[in-house]
């Protein structure tokens, strides 16, 4: 009579489910929070750095690790934009594919503008916010207003973080030579649309 080899590892039809082969895993885990690169770009309630925001898009601060230049981001979706990188990279703030492939500094101050691509000369933060809102719309999510309409101003970031500036040598992003009003320049950048 033929015999059939019995593999004790297999779950035979019927009967009770065998125990797992590996040592027991925790019954539940704390889900990791999606990191984001700036004010107003958080995907959920409680995803702000303080965990106190009440809605998507209303957080005050980035949760991705702060860094001030291209290629210094830790992971996917944690790079800023606007300072270095080609057109494609600069059209994707907070949307990079991998570690060290981020285009620029995080957080993204309101005074930063893209230096290449379809958003050249326009606000980097506003582009990041547009991409974020698009993603939320596609996910049928409601989004609240950001604390600042055009992102965190440089001087506000310095107040909150102690010191902050993104890399680059082209001088202060927010200042006056005595012949301009920085507020007017900031407003113009905030309101500027693509031509």
């Amino acid at each position: 009579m033929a015999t059939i080899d019995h593999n004790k590892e297999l779950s035979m039809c019927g009967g009770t489910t065998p125990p797992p082969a590996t040592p027991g895993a925790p019954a539940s885990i704390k889900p990791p929070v999606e990191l984001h690169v700036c004010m107003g770009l958080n995907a959920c309630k409680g995803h702000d750095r303080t965990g106190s925001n009440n809605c998507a898009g209303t957080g005050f601060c980035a949760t991705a690790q702060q860094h001030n230049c291209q290629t210094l981001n830790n992971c996917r979706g944690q790079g800023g934009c606007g300072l270095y990188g080609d057109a494609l990279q600069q059209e994707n703030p907070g949307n990079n594919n991998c570690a060290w492939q981020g285009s620029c500094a995080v957080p993204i101050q309101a005074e930063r503008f893209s230096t290449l691509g379809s958003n050249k000369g326009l606000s980097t933060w506003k582009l990041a916010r547009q991409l974020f809102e698009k993603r939320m719309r596609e996910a049928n999510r409601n989004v609240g207003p950001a604390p600042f309409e055009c992102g965190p101003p440089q001087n506000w970031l310095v107040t909150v973080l102690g010191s902050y500036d993104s890399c680059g040598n082209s001088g202060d992003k927010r200042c006056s030579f005595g012949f301009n009003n920085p507020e007017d320049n900031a407003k113009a950048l905030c309101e500027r649309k693509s031509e």
Partner: protein
Amino acid sequence: MIHQKFFGEKPEKVTLDNLEEALQQAIEIEISTIPTYLYTYYSINRAPSQQLMINTLTNALLQIRKQPPYNFDEATAIALDISADLMVFANKAGALIMSVAIEEMLHMALSSNLKQAVAGMPVLNGRSPATWPAELPGHQPPLKINTARLSMKQLETFLNIEKPMKPKQKNLKLRRAYIPYPTIGEFYEMVVDCLENNPDIRYNTHSPQLVPGKGYYAQNNIDTIYYDKQHKPVFTNEDNSGDLICVADKTSALDAINLIVEQGEGQLVKNAPYLDDENNLIFSELLRYDFTPKEGEESSHFEKFAEIYQMYDALETRYDSYNIENINFSDLFVTNIANNPATTDYPAHIAPVSDLINGVYTYIFVMIEECYRKSGSTQYETFMFGIHKSMIFILNSLCGDIMKLKYKTTEGIEYNAAPTFENYPFSPLARPKSQLQNLYKAAVAAYPSISYLGDRINDLPDVDLK
């Protein structure tokens, strides 16, 4: 020392026999311009303290003996106006020089692609000028190039490097083991002639090149912009000004060369009043010529340097008209660094930092060579994580950091230290990255403030010498 071999007694033209040496010479011409331009770039303080400048100038104006003397309001108004113009000029000069420097890096890559396609592996490690001052490889008459702070004299050198060609110079004498040429454009024309006259040249389409579409090159970045007097950003390169080209045939080879020449010299100006019959620049005429480009067109390197030259002259003339004593015009925005410094000039608290900078500078060329051996993700990682990170973050940071250190020469003259852009002689007995890490440790011991760069240096790709 440059490692070219002799290729003939009168190499007034490029032939199949010396094409490989000619293309290697092209690479070395492009390489030699980069430290020349970068040294001057780093001498510029692109964002000096305007308030400090206003205070300094106001005090100086109030002390001028003239009748009637300036009152306080007049002095501050003049100081504000001069300082604003100087702030804009310093930033603009920096942006324009950097816009040229990144295009020279593009030219270096294009000429490397050309050599890879036609003659074999480009050589970059150790091919930056060995000592400073140097000579632009093969230029006739010999063209001395310096690492020097921004000045009218240094701008004249830049203009001579990039000046456009006149009718061909004949019977150039051989002085060194290079193909002689009166302008860079003329040199590349000889290469073009060789490619045109030898249609059977086989182009290697299998070996790696630096190609477009991978994010390797960007025409503008935050360093190529400056703010005008209204603090509005101005971009110094046009988006369509050029990109990497994969050299796969004669057409693409000629495209690469045309891009180099056009970006460098621009369009030839018939009967240019600023060039004499011997192709020498007449600087007095150059000061008067209108180099404004057409709308949407990018200025050539020559035109950009001419613009800086004209602005520098105009501002200095205006400044001098006020008879401000004891404050040199350029001291307000140009750092006091020596001409052509070497690491051996530096004392013990600076030399290790200089060695590290030279190690990083040389390692960039080691990594670029690797990009011509490897393709796909390896090339991408080497370029983006290695070369981009090294240039934009590590080298740039170190060049700024070393300039905060001061030293005195044996004659007792005090200078700020500056990057020397010397080839670092990596030993073949150890991997260069480990040597770089040792250079970092020695530099941090001398200058602890640069310790923030440790992780960045450790993150670099580990590329061996070949």
